[in-house]
């Protein structure tokens, strides 16, 4: 892989990518140990499990996979001594278009993940864990498996870890090319050796009826890696890097029409969208102007250049007031992007300039969702394909007068009517492209 880690930008704070960006850093355990590796695990094994969960809660760590659920709260759903086996499954199925951070962690710093996972397992009484890696990362699966064997040989995994009496086995499980497996219940079905049809919630919340119908935590690769740093620096220090309710750093993956695409580890809420595009990523290509931004992976609703949002913020007298915030002044944290009607999601920021055709871009995403719908729920199986066929036809033959209306109707009849969030994921692009760029559809009407 080419390195996407030049000298850190002043806005960056590399915690997760701190080691990876050091010259000569390699994924073997000796290198990791030479960089302070497994010290957080040693510290954790001397603590009470509940204290570790409290630290993760106090750190305001939110999941980095897309849904942004508070990690500490997720862990506390597991009752430590309920007498049942518990599992942690790490979601390394990284497939959300626009997202490319876990790839580098898995290939270049696997022990960071293993250490975070061992701490998480100790906190939640887990003795068997799987790291689910998409099969399009064949080298990562080998690297992580080698790292597991190294850690076991050094006593950081296996029986009686570092003399603590705590046992943990970790295995790598490879996917087989299906985006839906990134959905946590689908991932569990896949890990059980079945077709990865998502499970309905309730009752199948992973924390209650997860892997093998036992309490299970499913966390993203980056989320688990943060745990080690929360222990190392203390939750207050960690939380302080971010915004209230969105602690620490978040890796923003920027792709599309910018000068320097790449991933940038930035304190949560530490940059505005404008700073990210123009400062961190070196701006747009010469002579181009901004047209659209998808801020959190392809499922996040698109934003249009020039938009102004009403965002609630604290006024000078302490009361909440509506403030007009232009697109480029939005801070890249969970709460702000939610208030702007979209989401920070998996941190995948896709930038499109004025040379781009929005119907073409939507059609590209519609084809993705049509290909990846698992087919379990009718609205999504049929609807994602219809949306894709309609946008393809608009591109090929021009639009019929009612195409836009029909597209919206199809999307509106998927979102909220499916077992898993793929229904929303596939309808939000169509809904938001139609709402934000109606002119591009209208001008194609024959």
């Amino acid at each position, binding site marked *: *892989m*080419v390195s*996407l880690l030049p000298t850190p930008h002043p806005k960056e704070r590399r915690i997760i990518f701190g080691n990876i960006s050091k010259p000569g850093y390699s994924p073997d355990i000796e290198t990791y140990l030479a960089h302070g590796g497994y010290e957080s695990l040693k510290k954790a094994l001397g603590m009470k499990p509940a204290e570790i969960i409290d630290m993760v809660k106090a750190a305001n760590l939110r999941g980095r996979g897309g849904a942004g659920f508070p990690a500490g709260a997720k862990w506390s759903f597991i009752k430590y001594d309920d007498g049942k*086996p518990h599992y942690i499954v790490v979601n390394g199925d*990284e*497939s*959300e*278009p*626009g*997202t*490319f951070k*876990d*790839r580098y962690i898995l290939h270049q710093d696997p022990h960071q993940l293993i250490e975070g996972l061992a701490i998480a397992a100790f906190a939640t009484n887990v003795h*068997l864990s799987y790291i689910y890696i*998409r*099969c*399009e*990362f*064949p*080298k990562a699966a080998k690297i992580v498996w080698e790292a597991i064997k190294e850690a076991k040989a050094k006593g950081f995994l296996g029986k009686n870890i570092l003399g603590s009496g705590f046992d943990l086995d970790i*295995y790598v*499980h*490879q*996917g*087989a*090319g*299906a*985006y839906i497996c990134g959905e946590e219940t689908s991932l569990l079905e*896949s*890990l*059980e*050796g*079945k*077709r*990865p049809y998502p499970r309905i919630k309730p009752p199948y919340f992973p924390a209650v009826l997860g892997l*093998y119908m036992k309490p299970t935590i499913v966390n993203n690769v980056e989320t688990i890696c943060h745990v080690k740093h929360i222990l190392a620096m203390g939750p207050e220090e960690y939380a302080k890097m971010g915004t209230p309710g969105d602690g620490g750093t978040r890796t923003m*993956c*920027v*792709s*599309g*029409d910018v000068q320097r*695409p*790449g*991933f940038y580890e930035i304190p949560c809420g530490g940059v505005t969208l404008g700073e990210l595009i123009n400062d961190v990523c070196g701006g747009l290509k010469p002579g181009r102007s901004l047209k659209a931004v*998808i801020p959190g992976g*392809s499922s996040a609703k698109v934003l249009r250049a020039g938009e102004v949002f009403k965002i609630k913020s604290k006024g000078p007298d302490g009361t909440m007031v509506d403030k007009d915030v232009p697109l480029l002044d939005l801070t890249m944290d969970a709460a702000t992007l939610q208030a702007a009607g979209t989401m920070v999601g998996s941190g*995948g920021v*896709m930038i*499109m300039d004025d040379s*781009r055709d929005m119907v073409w*871009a939507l059609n*590209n*995403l519609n*084809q*993705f969702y049509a*290909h*990846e719908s*698992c087919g379990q729920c009718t609205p999504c199986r049929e609807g994602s394909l219809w949306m894709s066929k309609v946008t393809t036809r608009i591109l090929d033959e021009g639009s019929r007068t009612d195409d836009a209306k029909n597209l919206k109707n199809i999307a509106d009849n998927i979102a909220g009517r499916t077992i898993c969030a793929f229904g929303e994921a596939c309808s939000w692009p169509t809904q938001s492209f139609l709402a934000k760029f109606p002119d591009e559809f209208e001008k194609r009407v024959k």
Partner: protein
Amino acid sequence: MRAMTDMKTRQADALTPEFVAEADELVSHYPVSKRSASLPLLHLWQNHFGFIDDSGMEWIAAKLDLTPINIIELVTFYPWFRREQAGKTIIRVCRTLACALAGSYQVKDNFCQAVGIDPGCEHHGFGHAPPTNTDGSFSVEFVECLASCGSAPVALINDDLVENITPSDIPAIVEQYK
């Protein structure tokens, strides 16, 4: 398009003790439920034989105390698995937005032309092999997001990620895999 998949011999008749030992090792990673080993065994099989024939699916099912349909339904669902021989080198070009913005459609067409595959030929999934050239040296297909959008356009060629591909790079890239 060629039909080179030999369906007369059974892959399961050609198993070695080493292969079986490797399969047993994979099954041991799933102490709670053997069925969990179905994807790992399918990967092992496909990596070894190039595709998975009916005897393979039957063998894996028997190994895991399942019926063959439990395995067939996986092979027909997951895009990675195939029931036909593919090219010796498989070029998987990323099709999704960031790569498309960076020119992946042109890149895929150029790869097809460079190895002698009709660019209009699509991969239909459901266990079929991706479009393959007549001497069986290359397959080329579009795949969805490979999670490398920062170095778009990219392709996964066998186990290698090839990044920032420009049309002019393609002859040299293809040459490396000949």
